[in-house]
Every structure is written in C-alpha cells, then in structure tokens.
C-alpha cells in the first residue's frame, strides 16, 4: 500500500469506528437501512471507488476497493457499500454512465431470454439489500450488462444469518433502463462478488482477532489474564495466521485483477480470485471457532460484539460460492496444467 492508501485505510477505520457500535448494529438489524450513514458514505465517494474521476468517482484501483471492502467487514458495516462499488465498476466497464442511487446487484446470471426486448421478466434470488435498491444490475448469459428499473418489481424480504437483507426480487415486465455488452464472463458478478466477500472476510477476521486479543488480555480467571495461559496464546496465534492468510491472498487477487483483468486471453485474475475466496471461506471455520472459544459464554450473547462478525462470516463463507465450489475450479485448473506446471503457474 502506498501512503494515500494507508491514509484511506486509517480514515475509514476512524469513520466507521465513530459511526458504528453495538447499539447501532442492533438497531440496523431491525430496520435494515440507515439513510444517514448511507448518505455520508456516498458523500465520501465510497460507492464510486472504482469509477474514474472524470465520471465523478474516486478513480481508484481494485486495491482501493479491497481497502474499503475490508474496512466494511472489519466494522460490520450494515450497508451494501461493496455492492455499490461493484455496480459502479460494472456500469463504467460496460461504457454506461454512472447511475446515482442504491444499486441492487443480481448475484446469478440472467437468462438472455428473460431480458429480451425492453422489459425484464424473471426472479432473482438473494439480492443484497434488494428491497432498498433504486435500480438493479446484472449480467446475462451473453455477457450483457442490464440495468433494470425498480418499477414493476416485487421484493420478498429474506436475510442472511447476520440479518443483512438478501431479498428475492421478481421482475414483472420491468423496464430495462440501459444495456451494453461487456468484456467479462457471464459469471462476472460471481467472480467479483467472491472477491469482495473475500476482502470483507479478511476485515471481519481482523476484528475477530482484535476482539479476542483484547478480551483475553482483560478477562481474568485463576488469578491472571486469560492471555497469560499458553493454551489461549496458541489459539490466538492460530487465529492470527488464518486471518493473515486470507488477508494476503485477497489483496493479491485485487492486484491481479488490476493488472490482468477478468477476461484476458492469457492468464487473467481468475486463479487468484478463486484462491482468495476458497481460502477465505475455508478460514471462516477456524476463525469463528477460535474467536468464540476464547471468549467463553460472553461471546455467545447477543449483547457482545463478536456475533455481529461471526454471523457475517458464516454467511459470507457461502455467498458467491463457498470453498468447495472455488476449490473445484482450482482443482480443475491444477489438473489441466499438470503437476509439472503448477510452480510456473504459481509464480507467473
């Protein structure tokens, strides 16, 4: 990270730490949306990290997107900022003008037939904050980006374990606001969503480690701080490793995406992205297990912060594909390349 990126990271930490606490997260789980915080994030340009400056964005790279998404994970930000970043990037990559308002990202590929003509008719599952979206963005089987209105839509509200909205949206002859071919695989949203969730997992894992270190240093049993016990120290060490492993590969994937894109003829960023989400999803198990273990019963209560993180981690593990799915992709790549080429592949 360069100096500007470090400053971004630090200022995000301060901003979210000041804005978000336990009471706030508790309230947001009930009301699911906070216009005030959303507006402040948008004013700071957090939704337009990847949009070029000429279009009014921050003109950042995927490394900046990583920094923002990781901070969102670390502070359990209950708003679709990573999704908004993705929407901005997709829109500009497709050559369309950026669109104001909350974007609903459609995780699954849209059948081309469902958006034939100027109206869309289909149902989209697990749309993050779908009920609050002012327009929707998705990719078709033909790699066409479509922007859909919110008129003529119905939302069936659902949520993930952290009570983040994951709604079922039915489009019923919904007007198509814009469309354009993009140079991305049809599953582009899944790849990029997986990348952003990996960054969020790295962030939430960071916060789990911070909480675990702080709590075990303060809590005393048998006349001394828990952190003085070797059994606890060893678990914290393992937790730190799991976090660092995810953090490193997620960042590497963002940089690979900046350098090689997602649809180059040669080696693109797919290997790194798949590695990031595979590692991140797999690491959720030790990260959540250890954090809870060292906290004892307090960590199992709704009144303590840890659960805001771990319930997100358990959900994000599966969102945009769990470790099994991404591992399978990587396994296929490895077998195709063959053992002798694995090292070349890793060092390319």
């Amino acid at each position, binding site marked *: *990270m360069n100096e500007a990126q470090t400053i971004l990271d630090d200022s995000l930490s301060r901003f979210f730490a000041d804005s978000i606490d336990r009471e706030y997260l508790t309230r947001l789980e009930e009301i699911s949306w906070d216009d005030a915080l959303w507006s402040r994030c948008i004013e700071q340009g957090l939704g337009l990290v990847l949009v070029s400056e000429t279009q009014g964005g921050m003109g950042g790279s995927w490394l900046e997107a990583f920094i923002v998404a990781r901070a969102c994970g670390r502070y359990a930000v209950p708003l679709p900022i990573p999704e908004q970043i993705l929407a901005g990037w997709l829109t500009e990559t497709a050559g369309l003008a950026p669109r104001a308002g909350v974007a609903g990202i459609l995780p699954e590929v849209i059948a081309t037939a469902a958006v034939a003509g100027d109206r869309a008719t289909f149902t989209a599952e697990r749309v993050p904050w779908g009920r609050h979206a002012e327009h929707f963005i998705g990719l078709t089987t033909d790699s066409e980006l479509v922007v859909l209105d919110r008129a003529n839509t119905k939302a069936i509200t659902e949520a993930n374990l952290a009570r983040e909205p994951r709604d079922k949206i039915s489009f019923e002859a919904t007007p198509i606001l814009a469309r354009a071919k993009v140079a991305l695989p049809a599953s582009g949203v899944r790849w990029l969503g997986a990348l952003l969730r990996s960054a969020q997992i790295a962030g939430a894992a*960071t916060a789990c*480690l*911070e909480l675990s*270190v*702080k709590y*075990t*240093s303060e809590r005393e049993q048998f006349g001394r701080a828990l*952190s*003085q016990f*070797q059994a*606890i*120290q*060893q678990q*914290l*060490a*393992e937790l*730190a*490793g799991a*976090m*660092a*492993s*995810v*953090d*490193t*590969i997620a*960042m*590497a994937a963002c*940089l690979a995406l900046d350098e090689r894109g997602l649809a180059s003829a040669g080696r693109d960023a797919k*290997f*790194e992205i*798949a*590695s*990031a989400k*595979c*590692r991140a999803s*797999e690491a959720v198990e030790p990260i959540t297990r250890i954090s809870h273990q060292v906290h004892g019963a307090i960590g199992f209560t709704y009144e303590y912060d840890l659960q805001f993180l771990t319930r997100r981690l358990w959900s994000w593990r599966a969102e945009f594909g769990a*470790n*099994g*799915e*991404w*591992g*399978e*992709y*990587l*396994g*296929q*790549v*490895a*077998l195709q390349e*063959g*053992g*002798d080429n*694995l*090292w070349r592949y*890793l*060092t390319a």
Partner: protein
Amino acid sequence: MLNLNSLRFPRFEFPADLAPLRAEVREFLAQELEHYSPLVRSYSWDGIDPEFSRKLGARGWVGMTLPKEYGGHGRSALERYVVVEEVLAAGAPVGYHWVADRQSGPMIARLGTEAQKQTILPAIARGEACFAIGMSEPNSGSDLASVKTRAERVADGWLVNGTKIWTTLAHRANYMIALLRTDSSSDSKHRGLSQFLIDLRAVKGISPRPIRDLTGRGHFNEVSFVDALLPPDALLGNEGEGWKQVMAELAFERSGPERYLSCFVLLTQLIDVLKGRASATALAKIGAEVAWAASLRNMSLSVAGMLNAGLDPSLQASVVKDLGCHFEQRLPGLAQELVALEPALAGSGVDYQQVLGNLIQLAPSFSLRGGTLEILRGIIARGLGVR
C-alpha cells in the same frame, strides 16, 4: 496492544530484471535434475549431493549474498530468494550446502574474524562447505538456553566437554557452529553462552555417532566432545553474546520459502495421479491446497520484500512458518484420503507411492526442527502482545 501492521503482508512484486535469473536457474535445474526420480526430489533440502552443490556453486548460486572479496557474489537477498525458491520447488538436493548458505555464511560474514572469513566464506560460495548446527543437547531441546556443554578458556584455546544431539550432518560436515556455555557462574541461563566456529576435521576429541531416524536413514547425530581443544580464534562473535546471536540465527531459519515447499513434490505428484479420475470433492480438496500454496507464496514473497527493504518482519515470518508447516503436514493425509494407492518404500510401487511414503514419514519433523510448533506459536503470541 495488537499492532495490525505487524500482521499485514504487503504485496511484493519482483523487479522485472530478476526474470532472466529465474529462467537461467530453471534451465539449469531442468538439465541437472532430468534423471532424478520424484522420490529423490522429495527429499528437498534433506537431499545430500555434494556434486550438485558444487555445480550450483560454480554457477554462482551459493553464498550469493556474501561479499565478493571473500569469494561471494555480492548479490541481493532477492536474487538469492529466486534461486532458493526455484531449487526447492524443483526438489533439488540442496542439503549439503543448505545450512552454510542459509545461516552459517551470513553469520560468519557478519560476526567472523578476518581469518575466519578468508578461510571459510570462499568454500561456502563454492558449495563445498557443509555446516552442522550444534544447538540441541540431550537435556536442552526447546529450552535451548539451558545448554550445558562447556567451553572452558585454557592457555592454548578452549576446552570443550559435553554432548550435542540431533545434529544434522555432523558426520559429514566440515564445520559446526555450536552454542556453548562459557560462563556457568552467571545467574541467568541466557548469559554465559557463546558461539564457536569449529573445524570438525581439525579438532580432536569430537565424535559424531549417527542416529537413525524413523525412515531408517542416518542424518542426525549425537556428538560428544571429550576434552576437545578449540583454537583461541574459534570463538564466533563475542563471548557471552551467544544467546543473542543464536536468536538472530534462528530468524534465518524462519524466514525462507523452505517453510512451505518441502512437500511440494507430493502436491505435484498428487495432481498428476488424480488426473482423469478426480471426483468433484477431490478436485475441491486439491484446489483448496493449491489456494494455500498461492497464499503462502504471496506471504513468503512479502517477507522477502520486507527484509529487502530493511524492515523487520519477524512476526510475519513466524506466521508463514506456522501456516507453511500446517500446509505441509496435512498434505500426506489428504493424499491418502483422495487416492487409494498405498504409501511405499523406495523400490516398490509407482513414483507417487514412494514420494508419499517418504513424506508421510518426514512430516513429523517439519514441526520440530528449527524450533517446535509450540515454541513458534509462543513467538507469535509475543508478537500479538499477549506474552
């Protein structure tokens, strides 16, 4: 207080001008190792082949960072990193010069007397010096500072009595760097220790007795010192500063790519064996290992980059070793879960079976040598501020 920066691994991009070196090393290895079986390659940095070490030295790829005036090549730590990760990934037999190249050479360059540097560094750079590490003793393993082997100052040098154990290659090495007690009166066990550079051929009274490891091979030794008289200039560095020096030495052991590449041949063999017959679950599991390898390489590289920039990534290095060890030790078990072929001894079964048989047996040592996993995690805990 937890300092997150000491747990972050900034991305490190190799300067493009290192690419030709990597290509050269690959070409050399492809030729040299053409007839090496996968089993032989799976010994990695445990594989002993003085001839190979000499050839690598002739190419200028041993003692790369040592100063030119002592036969070294004055090259950067990054250039050395490229060579080391290439030889390890290929499973080249680097064991003969490994310790000299990784830690003894740099230590002598930093702490040695002019005479020590002039006699020994050139041999190291030629790949001809084999070093043993004399730290552990029968009653001093993890509690290394409790070592008792004594070096007593006498008129014509130092008189050494005691026993070292688990000393890898002491029966073949030219030199040993030993941690010895020079002052027993000190109330702190960490004080009163000094390091000595011992010419194993020249000094009498040192007898290595090979100890067979569980694979049946004899790589490590019990080394007894009976009135062994070291010359006065055998002292390495400063008297009484042995503990500090040894801690710096062990940091070399933690920071390299060998910490995740000692099972790499098994991973590549497993991939080839699975080809054409992998279930979705098998693909997912092998893919997860590949993701581990990708993550570890990025982390290892980052540590190399930080060292190169003059930073102190000691916590990050310990984290990589811990994760690398976990990755390596799990692999043989995973292989047996995915493929029905039994592990085999040399001479029976297919290559994959022999490699598996070898690494199943070697794997327990990965979390022992150079300091155990428990001790390593204690170091990490200290870095986290809880110790």
